[in-house]
């Protein structure tokens, strides 16, 4: 079910009515939330709820054993079982066709004539998110960093909690399960703020991403022509804005909906396009994934504990796998590789060419970071290396005579939206929406809310799927 759909509006009203009615005690409210979450997921493809159940059962059992088992070998076996099942699901459903395709290429390259029919496997929505979430529980249990969930219901709800089930934030067990132990109820202010966040999230998705930016990005990346540099840049920054508003919009909706239930989810974005460098970027962009990769991949790979070379290798491997997490294609690996390279270059700069960041050079640095990030988005969005390379050549005027496909108004529209977005990120980078709202007159907030609602209504989105659902 999509947040930007009529079904979801009805669904949410029913869930909230049941949640705040007096007919259920807390345990039954949690049961109701769990059932609602399965319905939320099953409305897309009911049989795939079984995967959620299997993942839940395996990690609940593994967690239970890890809590009581003292034998280190046996503990490791339970951890491996959990990893095998979760990564096995991910490997089969997400990377099955990709692995098969590459296997065929390798076979043919070494002279073995081998052909295989694509398996055409359905990618279960949000599988990358809930497998990572549930794995974090088992790994933390193994490392004794978290306590075992008190009841199966609490754990199942942690894996399946509908606001963040399909596209995050990827929440750690200690941050979410513990919230299920005591009855939760939003205060009036929390409920209103949650509704406001839901509106902002929908505004980001329906108006900013789908209405103002997606068309330009689709036109440019869908074009088979060699493009003029301006068109290539405008298409790229349009995608840059689209993916931010789409994904941050989903996270904002998720945080808002959870808050309406009295549950607090962590921030997933903190104005990332005003980042001062790439380490800063990854502390601001998809925070729950980057912290997951840091804690469960980068640090176990050695992190910065075994010298500089090993640290760079760990960094690069983490970013390459982070790229692959986004999709089963080599272009995503290149995207991750570019980010890995940026991070390494940044660390080299800090070591050999350190400089102080002031308010004067900060904005320039943020702009350079943003521009470099835009180049990586080309590989993320392009569906082939050929397309990506043609885009890069156009962007850097390495080819002449590129075709113009965007009209003047579209160029002005996209550059204006992106410039405003960049400035908003810059001015908001050290504060939060909540802080700003507390300093703003309720009348102004009301007017902003009304304008956003009006724009969502006149945008009349056709229920476009969130980009990150496919990851």
């Amino acid at each position: 079910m999509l947040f930007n759909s009529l079904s979801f509006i009805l669904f949410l009203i029913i869930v909230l009515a049941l949640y705040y009615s007096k007919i259920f005690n807390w345990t039954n409210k949690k049961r109701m939330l769990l059932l609602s979450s399965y319905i939320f997921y099953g409305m897309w493809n009911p049989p795939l709820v079984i995967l959620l159940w299997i993942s839940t059962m395996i990690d609940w059992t593994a967690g239970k054993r890890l809590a009581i088992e003292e034998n280190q070998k046996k503990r490791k076996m339970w951890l491996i079982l959990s990893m095998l099942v979760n990564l096995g699901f991910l490997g089969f459903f997400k990377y099955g066709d990709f692995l098969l395709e590459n296997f065929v290429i390798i076979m043919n390259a070494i002279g073995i004539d081998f052909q295989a029919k694509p398996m055409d496997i359905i990618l279960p929505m949000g599988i990358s998110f809930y497998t990572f979430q549930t794995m974090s529980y088992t790994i933390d249990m193994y490392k004794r960093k978290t306590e075992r969930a008190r009841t199966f219901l609490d754990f199942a709800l942690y894996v399946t909690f509908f606001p963040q089930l399909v596209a995050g934030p990827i929440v750690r067990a200690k941050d979410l399960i513990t919230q299920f132990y005591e009855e939760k109820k939003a205060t009036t202010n929390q409920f209103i703020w949650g509704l406001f966040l839901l509106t902002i999230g929908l505004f980001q998705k329906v108006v900013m991403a789908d209405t103002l930016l997606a068309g330009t990005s689709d036109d440019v990346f869908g074009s088979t022509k060699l493009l003029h540099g301006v068109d290539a840049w405008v298409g790229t920054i349009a995608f840059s804005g689209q993916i931010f508003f789409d994904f941050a919009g989903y996270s904002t909706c998720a945080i808002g909906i959870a808050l309406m239930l009295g549950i607090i989810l962590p921030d997933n974005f903190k104005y990332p396009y005003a980042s001062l460098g790439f380490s800063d970027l990854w502390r601001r962009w998809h925070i729950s994934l980057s912290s997951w990769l840091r804690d469960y991949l980068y640090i176990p790979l050695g992190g910065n504990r075994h010298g500089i070379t090993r640290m760079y290798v760990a960094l690069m491997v983490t970013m390459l796998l982070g790229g692959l997490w986004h999709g089963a294609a080599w272009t995503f690996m290149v995207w991750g590789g570019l980010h890995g390279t940026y991070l390494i270059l940044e660390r080299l700069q800090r070591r050999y060419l350190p400089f102080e960041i002031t308010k004067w050079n900060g904005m320039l640095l943020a702009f350079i970071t943003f521009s470099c990030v835009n180049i990586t988005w080309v590989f993320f969005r392009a569906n082939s290396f050929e397309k990506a390379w043609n885009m890069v050549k156009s962007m850097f005027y390495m080819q002449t005579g590129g075709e113009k496909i965007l009209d003047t108004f579209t160029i002005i529209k996209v550059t204006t939206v992106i410039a405003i977005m960049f400035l908003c990120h810059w001015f908001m980078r050290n504060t939060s929406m909540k802080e700003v709202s507390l300093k703003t007159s309720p009348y102004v907030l009301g007017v902003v809310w009304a304008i956003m609602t009006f724009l969502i209504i006149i945008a009349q989105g056709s229920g476009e799927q969130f980009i990150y659902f496919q990851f």
Partner: protein
Amino acid sequence: MTRAKVESATKDDVVILGSSRAYFDIQVDQWKKLTGKELLQLASTGSSPLPTFHDIVNNTDFDGTIVVGVTPGLFFSTTFPKAFPWERPQAKVDHYFDGTYAQRSNFLLSVPLQQNLVLMSADEEEWADDLDLKSLLRNVHWGKRIPPPAQPPFYNFGDVSIPRNISMMPKTVTDTAFANSIIKVWHFFGKGSPAPDKDGTTSFFMKDVEKFKKKGGNLILIRPPSSGGVRMGEKMGLPRERFWDSLVNLAQVKSYHFEDYDQFKNLTCPEESHLSIENANYYTEELIKILKKDNALTIQKPN
């Protein structure tokens, strides 16, 4: 919703397939009034009827009556899956099979809104007079960086209702300038269309015709009216003898060309391709009379 009804339709049911002419010209209320039976209207604008016919023949047990409206420029256009007249109806067929429960419930929930509110965005056509934000922005053209769109502005001229039906907006009949704007679009499409693939489309269709006949189905071909410049263009580019007559000879099913009937041959289409609501009701009524007289339909109005 209508496609789902085909699954449980009986021998007495009638399904209409075709392009926008079959959609505009056969009015479901009039049909029900005169036959006592609900018509399953599955014709679709800008579409070849071949993908939908293929779906019904191959994916259902339906053995009732299928009326296929032949708009030559679309019927004989192509079988290429990525071509517009094919991709559009095929997307609808795919949606029927692949649509999620969430999409179905969204549709059901949208019905009361559609019936009680004015929609600002019409549909897949992306009309020039849509009022949703994306359309408003799409229609702003500044400067001469790229050439202006070659296609003239295409304004919405039909009202869609549930159960599936479309009728011409009265404005198209009363406002000649508006009707002319639609005519310009037909002429633009006519001039820009690739050459028809008569052999490919006919061969594809005939395979399904044979299958449908074997199942005991009753196929009827109709050629709804066109007029003015559009008719002239069709006579030149898709002459009756080479296209319609050839198809009828091969199909060996009951077929009705508007030019063969005094009731129809002088009907004028306000925008040269579709009938006004009044004439569409008249066309539906007269067509039923002709079909009944010819024993082409198995149903009769109950007493």
